[in-house]
Each structure stands twice: as C-alpha cells, then as structure tokens.
C-alpha cells in the first residue's frame, strides 16, 4: 500500500507538472474563434470602404497572410501583385485565360495553378502546381464580391488605379469575417495612473510622469490650463482639438476602446491634478 501511494503521488505530481507547464510555462494564445456569417452591405459601398473591406478580408477571413507574409517565405509578397500581373500573363508558363489585371488577380485566387510564381510550386511539381487553395471554395469560401474587394485592396496596395468595380447586386447573404483578430484578452484592470501611462506608453510622446517624450505637448502642468471635459475628449478623440504647434493625427486614437471607463476617468483625474 505504501508503494502504491508513493507511485500514485509521483504520477499525480508528474501530471501536475505537465499541466502546470502548459498553463503557465508558455504564453496562452487564444485561437481565433470560428468566423461568423455577416451581411455585406454593397449598396452603400464607396470605393474606400470597398478597399478597406478587401484589406480586412485579406487579413482575416481570407487567411491570405497565413502564407503571404514577409517572414515565412512560403508565398510571394503581394505588394506588387497588381503591377506584375501583365508580365505574368505574357509569361510562357502562363496557362490561364485572363487578359486584364483584374481577371488575372481573380484567376490567381480561384485557379492558383494557372500561373505558379517560380520557386513557390508544390514540392516536386516543378512549379506546375500551386500549393495555394482555391479561396472561393472549401474552408475559406470567399464570395465573388469578397474576391473583388480583395482585388481592389491589392490594386490599391500596389499604388495602381483601382479598376475593379463594386458589384451592385447586393445579392445573397455574404459572409464576412467579423472577428478576424482574436478578441482582446481580458486584461487585468490597472489601478494607478502611473501604471496606465507606462502601459500605454504616453511617455514616448509626452513629458509626463517622469518621462520626457517630445512628440506631443508637455503634460506636467496640463491641469492648470485644461479641464476634465477637455482632457477626456483629448483622450477619446485626439483630433477634436489639436494642441497648438502640434500635428493632428499623431496621437493614437485607441484609448477609448482599449481603456476601461474607470481607467480613463482615473487618468483624466490624474492629468487634471497636474498643476
């Protein structure tokens, strides 16, 4: 019995160590939740919005960045995809039927093997077969409108004219990735202004709390000239009033979403007290 207990304790300890390591020894990354179906409002779409939609799809639902990213070397970079398209269509290895840039990009996505960028083909296929999936099918399942949005984005990215047109038939319910990014992990609330300022690196731009940033106004006596309402607004909507001598658009417009109301108020109180 003694042996039995010893072995039991030993085994439980081992299991505990493994579990502990998996929980605390490595960063806990929450996998992105499954994509949610959402309606696409094509009627009221401007080209800017269409490009923005394309960008979101590119980074999210389309999972393009899984392969098309600068570090993995698994797929070509697409910054100039729209500019090199005409060269590609001239290439002797080109198997497709596209005659315009838009058609070429469209084809690249739904029939990737029509042209395989040299060096990126499936192993052993001698660049005749693309490892890229048909993104209109299967697991990715982009719709026609979504593919066009991505083309708009790619053309914009390459700095060329966007020649793809926004589809008008606000046809069936299209899917859009709502939660491309993993939802922000609930962060423990910070309880001192100093902690907040450190966390949100205000000191990189401002002289405040012992730090000496010089991109934005000096905040060491800000409470003497600004009231709480003003300060709150300058955090929530930095461009509402732009401090004299400074450029608009420099101060990040993120604090309204990234701080809790309690944190924001604490910070405002703190700033108002700096006299």
């Amino acid at each position, binding site marked *: 019995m003694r042996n039995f207990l010893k072995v039991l304790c030993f085994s439980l300890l081992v299991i505990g160590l493994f579990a502990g390591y*998996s929980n605390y020894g*490595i960063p806990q*990354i*929450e*996998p992105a939740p499954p994509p949610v179906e959402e309606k696409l409002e094509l009627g009221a779409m401007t080209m800017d919005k269409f490009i923005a939609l394309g960008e979101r799809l590119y980074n999210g639902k389309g999972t393009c960045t899984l392969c098309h990213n600068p570090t993995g070397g698994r797929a070509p970079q697409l910054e100039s995809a729209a500019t090199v398209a005409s060269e590609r269509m001239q290439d002797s290895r080109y198997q497709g039927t596209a005659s315009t840039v838009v058609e070429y990009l469209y084809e690249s996505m739904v029939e990737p093997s029509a042209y395989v960028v040299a060096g990126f083909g499936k192993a052993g296929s001698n660049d005749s077969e693309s490892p890229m999936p048909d993104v209109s099918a299967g697991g990715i399942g982009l719709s026609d409108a979504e593919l066009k949005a991505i083309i708009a984005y790619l053309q914009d990215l390459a700095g060329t004219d966007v020649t793809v047109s926004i589809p008008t038939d606000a046809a069936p319910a299209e899917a859009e990735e709502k939660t491309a990014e*993993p939802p922000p992990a609930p962060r423990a609330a910070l309880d001192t202004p100093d902690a907040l300022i450190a966390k949100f690196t205000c000191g990189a731009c401002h002289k405040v709390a012992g730090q000496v940033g010089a991109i934005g106004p000096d905040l060491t006596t800000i409470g003497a000239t600004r009231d709480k309402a003003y300060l709150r607004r300058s955090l929530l909507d930095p461009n509402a009033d732009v401090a004299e001598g400074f450029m608009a658009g420099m101060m990040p417009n993120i604090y309204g979403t990234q701080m809790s109301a309690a944190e924001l108020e604490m910070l405002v109180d703190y700033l108002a007290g700096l006299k």
Partner: protein
Amino acid sequence: MMIKPPASNGKTRRVRKAGLVVFCLGLLLGVLALSLPGLDSGIAHAAELADTGADTATYQPAPKLTAADYPTIKGVNSRIAVWLAAQLHLWFAAFVLAVPIFVFIIEAIGMGTRDKRYDNMAYEFIKVSITAYSFTAILGGLLTFLLVLFYPHLFQYMSSIFKESMFYYALLFFLESATLYLYYYGWHWLQGGFRKWVHLSLGLLLNAVGTLLMFLANAWVTFMMSPAGVDPAGVFSGDAWAAIHNFLWNPINIHRVIANIAYGGSIVGAYAAFKFLSARKSEQRAHYDWMGYNANFIAISALLPLPFAGYYLTAEIYAYSQQMGITLMGGVFAWLFIIQAVLIGTLFLSANYYLWCGMGRSDGAVRYHKYIKYLAIVIVGAFLVWFTPHTLVLTNEELKALGGPYHKYLGPLGIMPAKNTAVNIMILFTTLSFIFYRRANKVATVSWASAGNAIQIALFTAGILNIFFLGVYHGYFTNTVYKVAASIPQVLTTLTIIVTSTAIDAFMYRGAKQVAPLHWGRVSDRSQYALFLLAVAFTWLMGLMGYIRSGIRQHWHVTNVFRDASPDAFTPGLGYAANVVSVGTILFMAMVIFVFWIADVSSRKTAADAYWKTPPA
C-alpha cells in the same frame, strides 16, 4: 535486441526473424482480405446505384447546421464528454492492440529458445491486457453513444459514407474477441509441439484482425481530416475505398502502429515496475526486473523511429494542404510542439536513466561508468536546445502588437533545423546508452574487436559531424520553402548509424565472454520510477497529440466540407486542452490501476476452509 536469458541457444535469432516475417506476411494478407469481401461488395453496390442514377438520391450533401441542431444536456459539456470518451477509448485501444504484437514476438522467441520464462512473460502480458480489452469495448460503446447523442447529424453523415466499413468493423470486433479469448484462455491448453504452433497462429490472427480494426477506425478519423471520395459539398461518390484510402490514412496508420507499440511497452513496464516494488521474494524481484527491462526495451525500440513517423505525417499534412500544415506548425499550435518537446525529452531522459541504473545488474559495467556522465550531459543539452522556444519573451500582448499569432519567431519551422539536429543527437546518444548497456556484461572475443571499435567510433563521429553540418547549413544558409523536408538527410544519417553500429556490435559480440551472470533484480527502487514516468508521460503526450490531430480541423467536423456549428466549435487554447488531457490521464490511470488489480486478484486465494461444509465421505 532483447537480453537473452543465460540459457539460450543459437536458434533464437533465426526464430525471431522467422517470426517477424510470418507476422508481416500475416498483416499483408489481412489488408488484402479487407479489400476483398467487404468493400468490393460495397463498391459494386455503389456502382449499381450509380448506373441507375440513384446515387444523388442516396447521398446527401453534408448538412448545414446551426447551433440548435446539437442536442444539449444541462450541466454536460458535450464536447468534453466526447473528447474524454474518445481519448480513453484510444488509450485502451492502443494498449490492447500493442500488447498482442509483442506477446506474439516473445512467444515466438520462447518457442525458439525453449526457455519457459519467455512463455510465462508473454502470458503475463496478455493477462494484463485482457481486462483492458473489456474497457476498450465499453469505452468504444460509450463514445458511439455520446456521438449519437450529442452529434447526431455528424454521426449520420459519417455512417452514410462508412456504413459498410462500420458493419465489417463490428464483425471483426467479434472475431477479435473470440480470437483473444481463445488465445488467452487456451494458453496452457495449447502447449507443446503442434499445439504451440496453433497457438502462435492464433496470435498472428489476433494481430492481423486487431490491426485491421485500427486501420478501419483510422479511415473514419482521417476522412474527417482529409476527406476524399466526396465532392466539395460533401456528396459522397459511392466509392468507399476512396473515402477510406484518403490522403492521411496511411501516414496515420504508420504513426499509430509504432506509437501503440511504444505505448503498450510503457504501460506493461509500469505494471512490472509496480510488481517489482511490491515483490517480497528475490526471485520475484528478478522476474519483474527482467519483465520491466524487456518492456522498456520494447517501448524504446518503438520510440526511436517515432519522431521519423511524425515527420512523415507532418510532411504529408503539408502536402495535403499547405494551409493545414501552417495551422499545425506556424499558428497557435506552434507552442504545442514546445510542450511536446518537453514530453519527448522526458521520455528519452527517463529511458536513458533506466538503462544507466540497469547497468548495476552487471559486474562488468564499471568499465563504462565513466562515460555515462558525458552521455547525460549531451542528452540534457540536446533536450534543452530542442525545447527552447526561439523567443522567450513573446507574451500574448506582444503577439497582438505584432499583428496576430503568425509571427516569424513563433513558427518553429524557422528554427526546425536546430531542433532536428538536437533530436537526432538525442536519438544517437540514446543508442549509445543502449550499446553500452549491452556491452556492460560482455567482453568481445573476436580478433578484430579493436578495429570494430575504431570503426564504430569513426561512424558515430562522422555521423554527428554530418548532422551538425546539415543542421547549420539548412538552418542558416538556405531558404528552403519546405524546411520539413530538409531534415531527411539528417534522419538518414541517424538511421544509418543505428543500423550499421548495431550490426557491427552484433557480430563483434557474437560468442562474447560474459563477465559474470547478470543479476536480475539488482537495481534500485528509484530506477523503477523511471518506468512510471515513462508510462505517465506517454499517456499524457498521446492525449496532447490527440488534441492537435483533431484541432487542426478547426471549426470543421469534416475539413472544408461539413462545418461544426455547435457552440463548442472554437479551437481550445493550450492550457484548456492540457487540463482536459490531465483529467483524462488521471481517469485512465484509475482504470489501469483497476485493471492491474483485477489481474492480480485472479491469482489470489483466500483460505476459508471452515466456511464450507465438509462433504459427506
């Protein structure tokens, strides 16, 4: 090679070889038999349907479900319930499928050497697995029940495609049970001459049927990962063989057979260790020490090729779908491989530790003591390289700042060559440990012994240099798209060294002089804990890898064909998964303790003479 008991003769090796050949042939026959009666009629049936144009009516596309289509029971998390039932079923199944494989081999060795101890050991192994077999069946039933209960649409879809194979699975299961019971209960009846051959053939049949069973179940599992025989909407073409023989079927088959053997070895090792610790008599200690040693040997022999089977599987996953491959190795699962490295490192370290402790059984081992510390240093060093993530500071916050989990430092692909090098070195040094252990009690008598030693040293040195060169070259001077494939020359080097040096050793120590008889039982109690560690780590590791195998499907029941719309469709994070796996491991351990205890109880007798009436004379 298993350590021969002192009184063995030269026939061992031949018989062992013959056993293996017979075994492989049997497997082959089994696989052929599978495709004949069952599936062909299935295919023919489907072809008929196609002729009459009725197939579209027969086979529906995969259903598009909503959360409401999944029955729920208050207070029960259906996914965790299915997860645990599946994992427990798998652990037991792996165990009961593996045991007959090596029982068969051990029985054959016993027949060749006519050494009864092998027969006794084989019998004891199978005895342990017999209760486990009932558990496997019960848990399989539970799993099916839970699937039907919580995932009725998925179950229906799967069975519409696999109805034939499910039916033959059930039939085979009966055959398996019948064979197993005959094999076990007939052990003492089928002894001597011809009868022993009949018994051995039963063992072969048992293995063939068991392996087939697993292959069938693997087909269902791999179909969910890499569906074949269905169109993009999930409409089944009617070709059952295509669905079974899907892209990942064979890679998983191979991986599981090898892993099962390693796993089965580790579990019976734990059994022997426990019996060793509780044994009072010295001959019992000797017996269980010997049994534990052999179990460990089995586990390690299968553990050595396992990483290679793993690479093959990974490479095939990439080949099937680059997207799935990157999800596996470059995304959120990347850290899982760090945990995996820790666990495999644990396995290697404990197996080596056990070997080193085991050298105490020999009086000749002192000659090798001085090398042990270097082996230990290298193995621990390789282990550290292996599990060190490329960046230790990447927190969740930083990850988000970098724009998602697919960061360059995180994908172990980028640093794979360094890790591959470490793994290969670890495997080679484990081989060295083993060679030392084997030599510990012997003195080579062949004339070319020193030349042989020199060759082996040269072989190891050249091989290790080559592995380092390849690692550095691929790691820092190339930009291969498929870094997984870059490990192949390293693996080949390792394999060459293992095979060649074992062969040289075998010849060199042919007819070698024994220093003194091996003292079975002369090992520390502490060494036995290495066997427990092996079993626990193995169980946990299998659970973890089960999670990722299933997890890379993400929110799909059947990849890209049948979406999981249940509230549990999310991919669980690593901590969450580790906790489920830990709970599963504890449940499994509790059941295994029961299994061992029952095996023990069956041989106990309580004298209660006064209780019974004395029969009238």
